[in-house]
């Protein structure tokens, strides 16, 4: 056994220990053919099927991490971003409305927008989102770009309780700490490095480029990042800015499929997701963005929501026609992609065992849209 293989083994050791105890929570599925349907009503039904969200969000600050992968300028076949790899603004508006209706006091939509720490509203406008409409969807709606300090004065520190896969502590924008409820609003799509992009992988975007970006300072954060996070997180070519601790096992892997999936699993522990919502009305198949060769538009026609991100992602993966417990090399975890879901399960974040998950609304078999 080489040192590298040994490190890889010990970094997945929690998988062997924790899987049986991982919690489960119900997941609801609804069919929704187009964004012209009453998305708000569909979401409302989903939340009702989960037992309602009033108890979760009433009088609370709710932070919603939206999925806006890549720059707004890169589009698949010229299609609107929300029809391919971003969550659709109508779903965002519907979520705001439903959270407001359920009594949320403050609804903060956040994303670490690609290669900028500028106002998130600007990025949304550049993405063809009508910011005024989203603002009007509920009282207390705000936006924050979490790619740097944003509106905060300091970064929030999320220390991993126990043994993390990658970093012992994650240093993030304050919005991820200054919240009572954390929602991951993601897209139903595949991912080159992680197999699937769902509510768990969406939260990779919590990691600020100011600290973990290719042009982050060696010592201090770069509050004007202009690049992605490949060098630090995907390929381990360098460590983050020293405000954040270095990775636990430098050099154990330089492939995104191994590293990114572990960061995502770690994040599921340090920044737990209370509500996972998956926009699968329209999407893309073959990857997470138009920069992946061979991607194509997809039309699954589903909305999915759940109170546990691992369970929600497991059900969503099954809806995509994949085995959520598949191993490396099996669809959709091709090449070096490790199964993020089972890594998170091993951390105790939730179960991937479909037999243990209460699926409500439309059955998986009825909702299935095969991505391959």
């Amino acid at each position, binding site marked *: 056994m080489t040192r590298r293989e040994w490190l890889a083994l010990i970094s997945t050791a929690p998988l062997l220990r924790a899987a049986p105890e991982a919690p489960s929570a119900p997941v609801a599925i609804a069919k929704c053919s187009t964004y012209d349907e009453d998305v708000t009503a569909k979401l409302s039904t989903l939340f009702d099927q989960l037992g309602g969200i009033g108890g979760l969000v009433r009088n609370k600050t709710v932070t919603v991490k939206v999925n806006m992968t890549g720059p707004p300028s890169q589009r698949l076949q010229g299609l609107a971003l929300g029809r391919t790899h971003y969550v659709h603004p109508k779903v965002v508006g519907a979520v705001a409305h439903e959270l407001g209706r359920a009594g949320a006091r403050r609804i903060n939509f956040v994303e670490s927008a690609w290669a900028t720490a500028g106002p998130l509203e600007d990025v949304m406008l550049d993405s*063809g989102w009508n910011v005024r409409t989203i603002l009007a969807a509920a009282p207390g709606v705000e936006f924050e770009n979490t790619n740097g300090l944003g509106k905060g004065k300091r970064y929030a520190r999320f220390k991993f309780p126990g043994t993390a896969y990658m970093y012992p502590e994650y240093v993030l924008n304050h919005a991820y700490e200054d919240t009572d409820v954390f929602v991951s609003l993601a897209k139903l799509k595949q991912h080159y490095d992680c197999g699937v992009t769902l509510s768990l992988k969406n939260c990779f975007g919590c990691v600020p480029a100011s600290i973990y970006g290719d042009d982050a300072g060696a010592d201090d954060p770069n509050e004007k990042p202009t690049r992605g996070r490949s060098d630090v997180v995907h390929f381990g070519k360098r460590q983050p800015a020293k405000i954040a601790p270095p990775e636990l096992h430098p050099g154990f892997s330089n492939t995104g499929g191994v590293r990114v999936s572990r960061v995502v699993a770690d994040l599921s522990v340090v920044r737990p997701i209370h509500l996972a919502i998956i926009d699968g009305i329209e999407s893309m198949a073959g990857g997470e963005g138009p920069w992946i060769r061979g991607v194509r538009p997809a039309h699954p026609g589903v909305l999915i929501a759940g109170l546990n991100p691992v369970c929600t992602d497991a059900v969503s993966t099954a809806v995509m026609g994949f085995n959520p417990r598949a191993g490396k090399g099996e669809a959709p975890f091709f090449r070096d992609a490790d199964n993020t879901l089972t890594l998170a399960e091993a951390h105790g974040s939730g179960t991937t065992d479909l037999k243990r998950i209460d699926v409500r609304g439309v059955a998986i078999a009825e909702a299935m849209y095969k991505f391959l």
Partner: protein
Amino acid sequence: MRMLRAAVLAGFLPLVCAAIPKPADWVPVRWPWMDAASLDLLQGTAVNCVLVRHPEPAFTQAATARGIVTLAVITPGEDANLALAAKVDGVVFEGDFPAEPPALPVPVVELAPRYKMKLGGSAPIVGTYQGVWPGIAANEGASAHAGPTSSVWIDTNTGFLRAVRAFGASSVWLANQPPEKTAVSTARYQQVIAEAAISGARWVIAFDADLTARLARREEGALGTWRKITALAAYFESHPEWRAMRENGQLAVVQDPEKGGLLSGGILDMIAVKHTPVRPVAGDRLSPQALEGATMAVNIEGDDLTAPQRQVLRDFTRSGGMLLNGPPGWKDPAPPTGKITLDNAELQRLSDMWKDVNNLIGRRNMGVRLFNVSSMLSNYLGAPDGKSAVVHLVNYADYPVESVTLHYLADFPHATLITPEGINKALEVYKTDEGWGVDIDRVVVCATIRLEK
């Protein structure tokens, strides 16, 4: 020789103009046919000027009878007098002629290489046959797992056209032809017309070989393309006031159009792709008036400015303007003969300057700021009286773009969306942190937002 030709032109023009439109109003097309019946295609269109090779008297006569101007295209080595025998209304000298074209008793249009364009002259039309074929540049990321890239590059002539217009008020013709062995889509024809028009110029309509053949056979698809081409030309020709407007942004680029400004892909195009409104100012026309309303200026001319010109820039900064000078010793390159784009070495040389310009601009609103326009180029033009302005948009994607947002600084509480599809509707104007905003639902190939007091 030039004075003689001007004198001859001056003597003949009144006669000519009595019968045909003024040269400034000519809407040109390269006409590949010589049968009179082909002119039926022009009926009811805004196109009123045909450029033909080897004209024949019968054709010219038929065109004249329809009120259409016929211009004979003469290339180097050919005798223009032969064309005059066909009683054409004018002559186009197209190409890189070794000497001045001869004086002729008819209006003359020179379609010269860019480096030989007679900028600032008295000719009613200044033109070139050299242009890039506009469109979104192909993505170089061909690997299976290319990462995201931040910007879309659009090959465009708009920076060049603005630089030419900065030198004078002539009508500008851009007479580049479709790429060879390419069947150009209808949308691409519309884009090339629109990008010239939003820059105050006219593209000399030219057909690719496929469209030429199909139009000759009057195929319905080709006729549909032709109808869309002429409809777009008519759209811009129906708004002559737009052509009289001038670039209205708060960012001025001081650049000699005879040097870097004549190249495509330079600073002006880089700024355009960032959707920052920019006004080119020719170095020798640099004056306090030329910088009126500007808050930032970029001096590409470096040390080449005269002392009075440098004083204008000093006064600009003393009155609160921000000035970016090129690096010490910086010189803007004069384009080598025949070149119209920057090569890699020149791009590399420009990159330092561009980084500074990019940092200077940042995400500031320099008059207007556009959102969701990555596949578009724009132009912000103001009326001379300051009472109105327009923002033109051209979409280079093959798909319509939905949900475009415009934020603007000037106090224009009224906005109207005008499109070639016939939309003419008032837009809801709302206040933003920095001024005003409007939302545009959809842009197909082009659209214009008229802003008014």
